[in-house]
């Protein structure tokens, strides 16, 4: 009983940390730019495909692919923000959402054109492909690795935002755009930088997904983006702390749901999201007044 409990917890943690990797970029972009980016799932997907392609060209060095792959995606993110998104900040919400949705359609199909519509089996990582014995049962070591990476990313983001000069400017611009601009911050450039950085986070999440999910499919971004939305909403839109906690909760809930209530697995996630939105629309750590 105990072993099974521990293993369900571990599976939930790894799933949660995985969603966190994607949700962190989404949350950062929403917190600073105020845009809910549907295309973030596509950046995740592009990250996965780029890493995969580099893997086969770079002699199967996973780590090199993980560093180089997301850089290509950053370029894509730059174009999206600089030449499109920038022009819709001031207009209505539906247009912003639809603009990012248009990119989802475009990137999903582009991936089909370049890599084919079918699924691609992904390789395993040397050194992390095995399993570890925990309480007498095997647990994939790559999942353990993900459980470690999640908090490291969180720590890095916290350090960046709270302890550095760049972080202070980002926080200033996110709490008061106009004031920051009046004090000499080049807000448009900052927005581009934050968007590209958020894109990078999503793409790294995708790169790390390559060995984790096992299969690459052109629709993989759409399934993760909804999980990331749920997490971002539960934690409080724009709050990284909240997104981290939300990801843990959703990961564990989904893992226990799959184990004990398989029929209502998906249902549980969304009912939690609805309850949080109704009870506390600003989420766990959102700012007081709902915008």
């Amino acid at each position: 009983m105990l072993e099974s409990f521990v293993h369900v917890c571990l599976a939930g943690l790894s799933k949660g940390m995985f969603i966190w990797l994607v949700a962190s970029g989404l949350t950062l972009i929403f917190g600073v730019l105020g845009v809910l980016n549907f295309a973030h799932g596509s950046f995740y997907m592009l990250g996965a495909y780029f890493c995969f392609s580099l893997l086969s060209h770079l002699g199967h060095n996973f780590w090199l692919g993980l560093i180089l792959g997301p850089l290509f995606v950053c370029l894509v993110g730059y174009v999206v923000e600089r030449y499109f998104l920038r022009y819709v900040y001031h207009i209505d919400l539906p247009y912003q959402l639809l603009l990012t949705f248009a990119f989802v359609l475009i990137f999903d199909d582009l991936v089909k054109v370049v890599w084919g519509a079918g699924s691609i089996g992904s390789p395993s990582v040397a050194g992390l492909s095995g399993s570890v014995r925990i309480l007498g049962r095997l647990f994939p070591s790559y999942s353990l690795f993900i459980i470690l990476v999640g908090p490291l990313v969180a720590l890095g983001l916290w350090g960046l935002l709270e302890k550095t000069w760049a972080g202070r400017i980002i926080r200033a611009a996110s709490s008061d755009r106009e004031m920051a601009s009046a004090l000499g911050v080049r807000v448009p450039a900052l927005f581009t930088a934050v968007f590209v950085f958020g894109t990078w986070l999503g793409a790294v999440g995708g790169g790390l997904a390559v060995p984790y999910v096992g299969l690459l499919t052109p629709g993989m971004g759409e399934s993760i983006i909804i999980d990331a939305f749920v997490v971002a909403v539960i934690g409080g839109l724009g709050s990284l702390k909240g997104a981290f906690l939300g990801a843990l909760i959703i990961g564990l809930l989904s893992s226990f749901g799959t184990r004990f209530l398989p029929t209502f697995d998906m249902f549980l996630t969304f009912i939690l999201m609805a309850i949080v939105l109704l009870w506390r629309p600003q989420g766990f750590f959102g700012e007081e007044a709902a915008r």
Partner: protein
Amino acid sequence: MSRAGVYLIYGLAALALVAIGLFAGRFVLYLTMRVMLLAIFALGYNLLLGRTGLLSFGHGALYAAGAYGLGLFNLHVSHDPLLGLLVGVAFAALIALIIGFFCVRQTEIYFAMLTLAFGMMFFSLIWNLREVTGGDDGLIGISRAPLLGLPIGRDYQFYFLVLACFALAVWVIHRIRGSAFGLVLAGIRENHQRTSFAGIPVKNYRLAAFVVSGAFAGLAGSLATLLESNANPFSAHWSHSAEPVLVSLMGGLQTFSGPLVGSVIFVVLREVIERFTENWMLWFGVILLAIIMGLRGGVMGGLEKRLGRARAARPGGAS
């Protein structure tokens, strides 16, 4: 455009639709029916988005509620299509009432996220309750029995039922927009605080708009189920709710005819693009991008603006 001109255009469109029903081949019949179903869906949806200013990701679920309402009734109770349609629409309206009751407490992005959550709950139920809904297979083998003694089994017969529902939907939604109720909705969109200061229970009006637009989504869903003789679980998925948004946006959000024109463009464009390439979503995304970046009023909005400009240039030309 003058009033008589508008009536003339609608009259001609009605004539053309009847003519298509009488003389067109199967392919054109089918396409026209798809256009009309999409238009019903989008017109109802636009009552919420264009009129009330609320963006919903839950309308796919309401469409599916109509589809599964009719489908289950047809398979287990009676083949009567009229009763089936009534059941489908009523079921969709009921679900809209339940979902809407919770969702209208929030606005803007929180409303959108709540409708997404409730819509996906409905989707997960359809997906997982295999014994009732057939899971990922959906419902199959739905039959088209005669309607009040008139056969509708063949496409050219069924076409006129779709046309009748379409005409009814256009008329009802047109009436709603012009009614006191519709004007209050527009007031809520422009400034919900002021509207509520005027003594209007804003939440109740939002809920009413949600239920009415949900009922039309249900009508579109149940008719589609009769047309295809199956119900598809993916119609409940949130991404299906994006379809009426795209259609309204292409045609023009703030105009009545926008969703109508948008539906024609959407279905025809899709057919044309699919002739040339398998990746119609790619081209569709590009078109959507162009619309948002450049032509924000949609086709009808742009047309109206142009006509308005021409009228302003001609002294005394305004009517």
